[in-house]
């Protein structure tokens, strides 16, 4: 009997020690003079972020930054639970700008407002307008942009020379020019346009056509003639074999010199570099050659402050000091293929030699960067990522595709908890 009691006590102590040690970890993480910084940079860009943080820590700040990179899905799953628990909340967090509105409504964010007066350089004039604008919601600032990442279009220099020699004269490649090039190139088994990530391809075109995701900020307005026209354009190009086909890997086509134009994220540049083709970059495919009507789908990584039960003023000031330092030292981030949101970078000669820099090179290009900021963007993104090219590849009709998209997002919005 005594032995059993001892066994029981041992088991119980093991459990207790497990929980106590877990709790101790949290305490340690929070008590040091350290800014715990969560971000989703686990790919090659994670190396650049670590490098950037190391550079900052070498300046001997009072609060050093501790980099914690998590896979994106894990990070977004953890945020609500960790804020809810009130324990182990990071001092600084990176989120995609489209999340901010929803996070504010869910009470997950603290505003920067009480601290910004002490950092006068963290202001709109010093950032790309589109990235800065979307960090503010209902009159309060919740996000300070790190970057504005865009999908643009890679092109094969040799193939452009052969099939579309004048398409790039104005740095705007229209769908018409792509179609003309495709008609010539398909005889040689060359695809003109790779169908890559559907969400930015669709939204860029929808935006160019004047389509809106919502009118009242709540209810979606996707199922309309404009969206039908946008999908139909891609469908027609696919049927004419101008674009890549179902089952084809557009990346492989481009890297093996069998595709002329390849719309993809600027963050893919390092991967494309590994290929052996001569390539350049330009804007996303446009329906008009008017530069003022250009749309390049964009998003932005934003620094946010997750809600904390007891926010330390000193630590928050130190956090903003780091954000301000990044504003002036974002070349390392640009080296990851990204476009920093801080306009200070545009004065850096090394940056201006980078391929993606053309997107920030003038006001017209900057204005083309469009963030589709809809509070319920997450639901839309999930639909577009799951059903992707089903209408373009004729697996369903365009009408059914759009009706389902509209109903899905509407029902999900209606099913949410009241604010």
């Amino acid at each position, binding site marked *: *009997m005594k032995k*059993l*009691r001892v*066994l*029981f006590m041992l*088991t119980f102590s093991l*459990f207790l020690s497990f929980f106590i040690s877990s709790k101790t970890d949290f305490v340690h993480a929070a008590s040091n003079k350290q800014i715990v910084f969560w971000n989703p940079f686990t790919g090659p860009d994670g190396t650049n972020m670590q490098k950037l943080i190391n550079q900052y820590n070498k300046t001997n700040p009072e609060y050093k930054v501790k980099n914690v990179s998590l896979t994106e*899905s894990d990070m*977004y*799953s953890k945020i*609500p*639970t960790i*804020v*809810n628990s009130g324990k182990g909340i990071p001092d600084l967090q990176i989120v995609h700008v489209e999340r901010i509105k*929803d996070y504010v409504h*869910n*009470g*997950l964010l603290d505003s920067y407002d009480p601290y910004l007066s002490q950092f006068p350089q963290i202001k709109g004039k010093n950032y790309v307008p589109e990235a800065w604008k979307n960090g503010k919601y209902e009159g309060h600032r919740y996000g300070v942009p790190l970057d504005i990442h865009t999908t643009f279009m890679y092109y094969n220099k040799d193939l452009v020379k052969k099939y579309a020699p004048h398409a790039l004269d104005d740095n705007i490649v229209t769908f018409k020019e792509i179609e003309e090039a495709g008609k010539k190139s398909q005889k040689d088994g060359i695809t003109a346009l790779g169908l890559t990530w559907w969400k930015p391809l669709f939204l860029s075109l929808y935006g160019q056509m004047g389509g809106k995701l919502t009118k009242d900020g709540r209810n979606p307005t996707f199922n309309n003639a404009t969206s039908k026209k946008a999908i139909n354009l891609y469908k027609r190009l696919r049927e004419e074999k101008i674009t890549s086909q*179902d*089952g*084809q*890997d557009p990346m*492989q086509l481009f890297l093996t010199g069998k595709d002329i134009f390849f719309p993809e994220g600027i963050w893919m540049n390092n991967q494309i570099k590994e290929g052996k083709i001569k390539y350049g970059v330009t804007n996303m495919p446009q329906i008009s050659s008017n530069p003022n009507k250009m749309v390049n789908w964009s998003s932005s990584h934003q620094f946010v402050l997750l809600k904390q039960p007891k926010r330390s003023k000193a630590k928050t000031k130190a956090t903003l000091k780091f954000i301000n330092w990044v504003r002036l030292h974002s070349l390392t981030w640009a080296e990851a293929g990204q476009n920093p949101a801080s306009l200070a970078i545009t004065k850096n000669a090394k940056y201006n030699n980078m391929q993606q820099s053309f997107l920030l090179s003038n006001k017209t290009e900057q204005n083309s960067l469009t963030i589709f900021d809809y509070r*319920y*963007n*997450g*639901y839309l*993104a*999930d639909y577009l*990522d*799951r*059903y*992707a090219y*089903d209408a373009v*590849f004729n*697996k*369903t009709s365009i009408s059914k595709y759009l009706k*389902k998209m509209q*109903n*899905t997002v509407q*029902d*999900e919005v209606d*099913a*949410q*908890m*009241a604010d």
Partner: protein
Amino acid sequence: MEDMLNTAKTAENVRTKSRNSKPTKSHPLYYLLPHLIIFSIFFLIPLVFGIYVSFTKWDLVRTPDFVGLENYKNILFSNSIFHDQLTSGLWHTILFVLLSVPFCIVVPLLLAVALNTKPFLGKFFQGLFYLPSLFSISAVVIVWSLIFNPNYGPLNTLFHLNQVWTGTQPWAWMTIVILTVWWTIGGNMIIYQAALNGISKDYYEAADMDGASSWSKFIHITLPSIRGQLLYTIVTTTIAQFNIYGQPLMLTNGGPNGSTSVLMMNIQQNAFGSGQSLAGLSSAMAVILGICITVVSMVQLYLLRDKD
């Protein structure tokens, strides 16, 4: 010397006392306690909490709002997208169970029977068949998506085909079933091998003397002898396949046009998608899936029970 005798007597008394002490009613509880703690933390409490959440609206952040049966009404009787998600997701899940479970039982059984004849390199093949069970679903999907790749996959290249295997039906289901059977052969095969080893050789010798065919021996000796193991594997395999998630998520992404979207994918997306969590609706769907699995398992147990 006297001291030594006293010590020996004392030790004997202690042993006798210990042998004679009757276990109290709480005695078994001490043995069960470690398991009960783990069972409660990782199963019982989440189960009860999950059922409670199914009666609420909850975004994983704020306090859940109790809404009674609203979630169930929404997914069972309304015209909403959630009703579609439940019905189509459940149908796709059942379809997958019907397509995959027979193969997940028959293929390992045949392999186990073949290995039981102690063929040349039998141990090597046993290891080879078991190996996929050790891989993660991500690794398995990567391997098979390369095999089914329409551009450079060996399947299309060898047979000069131009088939988009994961993008058209019925091939999308076929790829998922093949992958699943390949991945899960090992577990059931080992159970059958252990069961086959336990069958007395006398039965087969007697059958040989009566001139029974191999098929006849398989039907009348082998299968009845491993009835218990068959019942166990049928029930556990069915439960496992009802919980299908990783294969369609990574191989077909639920396509083409949502035709391989299974219920677990919808449950996961509603609770942990990119938008605000709809955890209440997801939990209600999960409860319905749980009820379906329980009912199917009970029916299987009833039909396959030992009538003797």
